[in-house]
């Protein structure tokens, strides 16, 4: 009798647990899916204004994701998938522009801009240092600015 009661109780508990079910992930293979989404986040949805392949809900986007999933299942690497897409859709599909002759300026641009800025900075520093005639500042030591008593209405500077 007791054993039957225990059995019934366990069964009830088991079915209760089964009712509060762990939701199944959308993907069959979560690891590969993560790889797919990471890759798709750097790819462009070709029929959207400006969205990644990962985020888009457009039909073509879903089809493309399925296609990539298939290729990954068949053993394609990230590079293979990218090569396949670029062959079909051109560099437009990549959000990370590939490094080639036409994008050399793009990728080196930031460094060049910074260097130009530094050059201008150095030139300005040299020129300003060369100015001999210069009235020295009233205080060489640097008290906190706002502690100065109001002088001519100019109270408090930072």
């Amino acid at each position: 009798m007791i054993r039957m009661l225990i059995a019934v109780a366990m069964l009830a508990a088991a079915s209760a647990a089964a009712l509060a079910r762990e939701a199944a992930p959308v993907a069959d293979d979560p690891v590969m899916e993560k790889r797919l989404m990471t890759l798709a986040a750097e790819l462009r949805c070709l029929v959207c204004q400006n969205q990644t392949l990962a985020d888009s809900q457009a039909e073509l986007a879903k089809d493309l994701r399925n296609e990539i999933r298939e290729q990954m299942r068949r053993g394609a690497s990230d590079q293979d998938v990218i090569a396949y897409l670029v062959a079909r859709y051109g560099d437009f599909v990549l959000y990370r522009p590939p490094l080639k002759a036409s994008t050399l300026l793009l990728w080196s641009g930031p460094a060049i801009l910074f260097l130009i800025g530094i050059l201008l900075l150095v030139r300005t520093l040299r020129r300003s240092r060369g100015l001999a005639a210069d009235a020295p500042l009233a205080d060489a030591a640097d008290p906190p600015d706002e502690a100065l008593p109001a002088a001519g209405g100019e109270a408090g500077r930072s």
Partner: protein
Amino acid sequence: MIPEIGHFSLILALLIALVQGVFPLLCAARGSTVWMRMGRSAATAQLLFVAVAFAALTQAFVVNDFSVAYVASNSNSALPLQYRIAAVWGGHEGSMLLWALILSAWTVAVGWFSRQLPEEFIARVLGVMGLVSGGFLAFMLFTSNPFLRLIPAPQDGRDLNPLLQDFGMVLHPPMLYMGYVGFSVAFAFAIAALLSGRLDATWARWSRPWTTLAWLFLTLGIALGSFWAYYELGWGGWWFWDPVENASFIPWLVGTALIHSLAVTERRGLFKGWTVLLAIFTFSFSLLGTFLVRSGVLTSVHAFATDPLRGVFVLVFLGVVVGSALLLFAWRAQQVGLGGSFEPVSRESMLLLNNVVLAAAAGTVLLGTLYPLVLDALGMGKISVGPPYFDTVFVPLMAPGLFLLGIGPIAHWKKASLPDLAARLRWAFAAGLLTALLVPFAMGRWSFPVSLGLLSAAWIVASSMTDLLQRVRHSRETAGIIAKLAANSRSYYGMLLAHIGVAVCIAGITLVKGYESDKDVRMQVGDTVDVGGYRFGLDGLSQVTGPNYIATRGEISVTRDGRRVTTMYPEKRTYRVQNNPMTEAAIDWGFFRDLYVALAEPLGARAWIVRILHKPFVEWIWTGWLLMALGGLLAVCDRRYRVAVRSAQAAPAPEPLLPEAGGAAAR
């Protein structure tokens, strides 16, 4: 009838703007005071007429006058009243009218609050603003008239884009425009200074509050846009380096450089040329941003206009404004002069380096945004430049700037000593390093990029606190700590707050990118899933009807360690008129984390694909931006701007033109 009144009002406003633009400038050049004063009255009259036009358009929306083409394409009789009003600036034409309204309002404000400035100077400022205003009004009247009629009038309108039916959308464009338009004041001040040949520390003091005010509005506008994208677009992201986002970010970066350059010009009369150039470029980028958005040249989330005539007009306008400003600068730059000197290690040189970083960053964002266009125009192929590029180049570029953020405020003007700085900041650096090394462990996983980001954030906070502490310690006040704190100006606290805001934002970005997690799952009623330590359960699905949409609403209970945290209601809405499905994500806001649930796709009748995200510290991002804006507000309210007004009203003192003497006296 009323739309026609509005239309006529715009035409009058254009004529007045041209008067306001031409006469004061001509007469300032000749020195005739009567016609110079015309600037203020013309500005007031212009505001009046633009306001009438705006009111007329608003009225057309409120009463659902679908015979006006713009109303018909942006509104609907089922649209709730608040969105009918917001729809006034929901499309291209009305958006331009809002620009014009805000511009005329700022012009009047500049006229009002500048009684202590020389008449000739103000005449020039108002004149320049009048010309800009004229350009926008002409753009509207010739290419983007909001009052065009649609005959025969349709039964009902095409409804406002559902993405825009939201409170954030109501605020975002006005805030942005307050920023863009505000920078036209800085621009006008710069042009006026070049025209008059007078550019000194006093000019910088006049210009600074207006520029900071514009900057803080642009800060708010960008923050709102990002925040809105986060909660409205349904993908949990908040910045995509979309061309339109970049179009507002570039003027912000240059504007930040401008307010820092103005600080140096005001304090020491230096960097005058740079400041004027930055003022010109900030406004130019605001206009360029307008062009990028309006002409539809770029593929992005919102391209308002696809009419090439509009694009050509704005391009010409931009060319005239920027070209003439730069020509004027080239012509007058020598008279501006160089000012005093400073050592290679000093606050001046650090601020200059800071501006180099900001300018290079702005240039980079511009490069990435325009590159695909240029390549395509040259026939060299179509490429895409997206977040992977920007994230890769932007972060290393900004890093030196963030490091400087800590040192600059502590460095002395004119000459600072590196060993002294190192000694004063060593504890701050140690504190930063410790935070950066330990916090990732507390979050569960150590990673180098996270640590680096936290280092910059913690460094900024620690060095700012060090500076405050040292000021209190060396304060001449003897009364007590409150008095010592009060001895610092609002301008100082504004800077402190804004810099801390930067740190908070960076901390938020670093932590959310390092530790966010998400799951896409199939859920039926009764299913549960665990994300980020919380358990989410789908308790029910129901159909709800809104004023102009029908929706499926999910009820998601959230528990943690068995205790109920909250219930969330994500929706998938279909707006009746435009018939597109819209995801209304449910967000549980929190200081330390956001929980984000969206109904992605239906699977049959009783199941959905649900997207659940755990975003730690994501609210810190916008909190940081808010702090930056508040800091700006504090700085604008600094006593010295009002003291200067009062003392000048009492007895206008002759301003010293020698920059160094002026700087020394002001110290």
